[in-house]
Structure formats: structure tokens, C-alpha cells
């Protein structure tokens, strides 16, 4: 499983994870113009919840669904309790809350579930590589799951009235209120949805990178890179960007910089995007809010 085709396929698998986290970030960014630096930490915490449920004897997919639901609720509660009162506060206050949240959640993860690195089960066949040695069972399965989630999210936003209302609230909150949309709740739902998507990403990536409190830090960086590459105000673009950086990471890691500099590669992608295509591939430049 060494050649370029495998690197691309593996890139798509990790890209699905990055795309999911990038989508979670962009959803919140679009609605509030803030970047949730604690998104990765929240996902890690969710993954711990999943592991606890599985270890308690719940079937994998039951634990999966319960975790996603609980994460959704956590996301809603965080928005209502911490962000809602700060709605009109300056950007720095928001960043302060996100960093505080990051500290609290990551240390809470370590405190409750201890800091040791843990293996995480995969429901997919871990036996012989499939498709002529191109892809492992988990890579295939996790790609299918992330693609299914992304498709569901797309369908939700495109074809349901609630999804439309959430988009309306993000684009134009004033007009949204005038047609009777409860904008505050739309933001909370967005947070819940972002947390749920993050939970799926965490559960899918944990068997590969192993579970520890900082598991999502590097993934968050690639999600940033993906979101910027695709356009930070464009959810579809962010998803495409997430897949793209997944492939870039795998090829770059295999042939260019080695795995020791994977995080630096993410930084390089971010800087390259800012230098050469600041609006991202599919977005508009957002130069306001100096």
C-alpha cells in the first residue's frame, strides 16, 4: 500500500475528516463571523464519550448515534450559556471564550478519561486491504460515513424549511427576524450541528490516530487550511478544501516532507492560500472587521 494511488485514496479518507471539521467551522463562521478554536477539543471530548459508551457494552452504532446526539446537545448548551450573552461583545472577547473553552474541555478530557493514549475500535473490516491493496476497510468505511454525513447536511440545508431558515439567519439576521425566524435558536442549532459533525469526525479518525486529549489539534489545523483553501464563507468550498488538503497532506507527507512535519505543512498551506488566493478557491474575500 505504498504507491501514489494509495496515497490519494488515503488522502480522501483523511480528507473526509478534515472536510467535516472544516464544515463545522465554516457553519459557525458564516452565522457569527467567529472561528471556534475549541471545535477540535469538543470533538475529542465527544470521542471519549463514544469510547465510554462502547466500553460500557453498547453496540458500536448505538454508541455512535447516542454520542452524536449528546454532542449536539452539548453544542446547543455551549452556545446558549457562553456565546449568547456575549453576542454583541468584541471579537477579542469571543476568541477569549473559545480559548477558555479549549482549555476547559481538553483538560476535562484528560482529567476524566486520563491522559494515556487509547486505542479506539472500528466497526469496519480490518482484515486484508481491499480493492487490490489500495484501501483498508476502515479507510473505506470512514470515507463512506463522512460522505454520508456531508450529504445529509447538504440535503438538510437545501431541502428543509429549518435548513433554509438557518441559512437565512446566517446571511441576513435582520430580515430573518422579520419573517419570524428565531435567529438566536438558529445559532444554537448551528452550534449543535457543528458539534455533532465534529463528533462523527472524531469517532472516525480515532482508530487511525488513537485517542488522547490533543487528538484533534493537528486535524483542526488541517480543517483551518481546508476551510481557507475552499473559502471560509463557503460551506461547499470548505468541504472541497478539506478533501484537497487531505490529499495534499498524504502526498506531501509521503514524498516531500515526511510525517514529522505534517503540522508545518498545514501552516504552509494556510500561508500559501493567504498569499496567493486569499479568498480561497470558491469564496469571497472578507476584508471587513479589521
Amino acid at each position, binding site marked *: 500500500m505504498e504507491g501514489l494511488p494509495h496515497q490519494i485514496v488515503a488522502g480522501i479518507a483523511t480528507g473526509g475528516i478534515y472536510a467535516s471539521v472544516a464544515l463545522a467551522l465554516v457553519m459557525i463562521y458564516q452565522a457569527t463571523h467567529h472561528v471556534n478554536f475549541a471545535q477540535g477539543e469538543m470533538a475529542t471530548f465527544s470521542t471519549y464519550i463514544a469510547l465510554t459508551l462502547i466500553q460500557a457494552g453498547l453496540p458500536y452504532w448505538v454508541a455512535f448515534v447516542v454520542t452524536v446526539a449528546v454532542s449536539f446537545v452539548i453544542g446547543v448548551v455551549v452556545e446558549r450559556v457562553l456565546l449568547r450573552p456575549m453576542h454583541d461583545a468584541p471579537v477579542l472577547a469571543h476568541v477569549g471564550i473559545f480559548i477558555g473553552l479549549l482549555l476547559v474541555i481538553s483538560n476535562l478530557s484528560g482529567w476524566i478519561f486520563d491522559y494515556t493514549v487509547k486505542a479506539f475500535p472500528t466497526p469496519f473490516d480490518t482484515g486484508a486491504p481491499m480493492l487490490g491493496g489500495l484501501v483498508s476497510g476502515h479507510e473505506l468505511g470512514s470515507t463512506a460515513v463522512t460522505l454520508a454525513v456531508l450529504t445529509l447536511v447538504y440535503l438538510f440545508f437545501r431541502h428543509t424549511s429549518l435548513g433554509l431558515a438557518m441559512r437565512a439567519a446566517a*446571511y441576513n439576521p*435582520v*430580515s430573518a427576524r*422579520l419573517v419570524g425566524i428565531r435567529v438566536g435558536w438558529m445559532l444554537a442549532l448551528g452550534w449543535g450541528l457543528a458539534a455533532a459533525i465534529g463528533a462523527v469526525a472524531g469517532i472516525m479518525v480515532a482508530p487511525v490516530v488513537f485517542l488522547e486529549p490533543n487528538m484533534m489539534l493537528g486535524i483542526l489545523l488541517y480543517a483551518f487550511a481546508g476551510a481557507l483553501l475552499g473559502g471560509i464563507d463557503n460551506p461547499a468550498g470548505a468541504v472541497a478544501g478539506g478533501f484537497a488538503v487531505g490529499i495534499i497532506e498524504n502526498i506531501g507527507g509521503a514524498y516531500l516532507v515526511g510525517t514529522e512535519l505534517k503540522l508545518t505543512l498545514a501552516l504552509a498551506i494556510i500561508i500559501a492560500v493567504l498569499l496567493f488566493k486569499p479568498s480561497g478557491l470558491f469564496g469571497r474575500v472578507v476584508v471587513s472587521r479589521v
Partner: protein
Amino acid sequence: MAALLEAEGLTAGYGATAVLHGLDFAVEERGVTALLGANGAGKTTTLRAVSGMVRTGGSIRFAGERLDGLATEEIARRGVAHVPDGRGTFMELTVEENMRLGAYTRSDRAEVEADFERVFGYFPRLRQRFRQQAGTLSGGEQQMLAISRALLLRPRLLLLDEPSFGLAPLVVQEIFAIMRRIREEQGVGILLVEQNASLALDFADRAYLLETGRIVVSGPAADIRQDESVRRSYLGY
């Protein structure tokens, strides 16, 4: 019979600046009330006060219920549709999605579909633009879309903020002609803010003249139209 909308001692402002200093006005059921006045007189703020978009004092009654203190979205849900200044178009969404948002609070699906047809009857052009991104519409079309979005809420009261603003005279004529039909067919009360006083007075049955946040003249629109001195000193035509 009580009026559809009744404001008493209505005050409002932005931050520390008071803009409205105690207004009393009313809109009758199925009636059209016009708010006239120069730029900065407080007309737009009055509409925003009714919709709960600014902090207010005094009382606002709508169909017997207090509106003041309610959130904007709750006021909309009680049947007050507001076509704001600048038209409030969801530029990134399609015409269809903009219209669906108008009906967001309703659960009577069949009725909503019927209302879509009714709205297309008023503004056939929206049917042609149905799948188009709303940001690509002309100013007149966006105004039509804004009115349609408001009608799809099935409001009992329609707040219209300068529907003629920035539009060619022919388009304005067209829109006001359609609003007359809407008024007759939809049984909706209208609170209209207009710079173009003669247009507004032809359309309205009651009018209030605002000057720096106070009502200086009020009465039946026909009387005000006749009153030479009011016309000269306040309306300038």
C-alpha cells in the same frame, strides 16, 4: 371598534439618542395609514418600533394585544409583516427561497401554495425569476419580492417602508396599482412610510405628518391633501 394597530405615547431611540418623542397613531382594520415627513423625522424608526427592532417606550397594541417588549420574530409571528427600508432581500438565496421564507412560520401547506399563485398573479415577473438568485434582481423586482415575502406571511398588518425608493416612476406606479389590489383583496391593514407625499395621500385613508419625532398634523388623508397650508409648509408640493 378598536383599531388594528394603536400606538400611545410611543417613544424610541438608538442608544442614548431619542428619536421618537411620544407618538399616538392608529391603523384601522383593512385601512391604510401613511406616515409622512422629511428625512430624519422618525418615520423608519416608527416602523422599527412597531416591529420591536428598537427599544421603545409607551404602548403598542395590535388586535388588542400588547406588542411592545416582544422580540421582532414574535411580532412577525403575530401577523405583522415588515417590508424594511433597503427591502431586506436575502441576496444569496433564490427568489423561491426568499418567498418560502416569507411563509416560514406557516404550517398550512396547501394554503401557502395557493398564496404563491396569488402572489404570482400580482407580480408575474417573479414567476419568471423563480429559480434566480435574488441578488441579481432589479430594484423594482426586489421591491416586488419584498412585498411578496411579506404577503406570504399572511399578515393582518403590513408595514411598508418607502416602497417607491430608488425606483423609476413607471415602476412605482405599477407597484402602487398592485398595492391597491392587495389592499382590497387581502383584507390587510397597511402602515405606509413614504417620502412621496402625494402618492401616499392618494393611497392612504389616514395620514400623520412627522417632524423631528413628533406628530404635527394628523387626519383623514383627503383632508390633508386639500389643506393648502399643510401641503406648502410640510409636504412641499
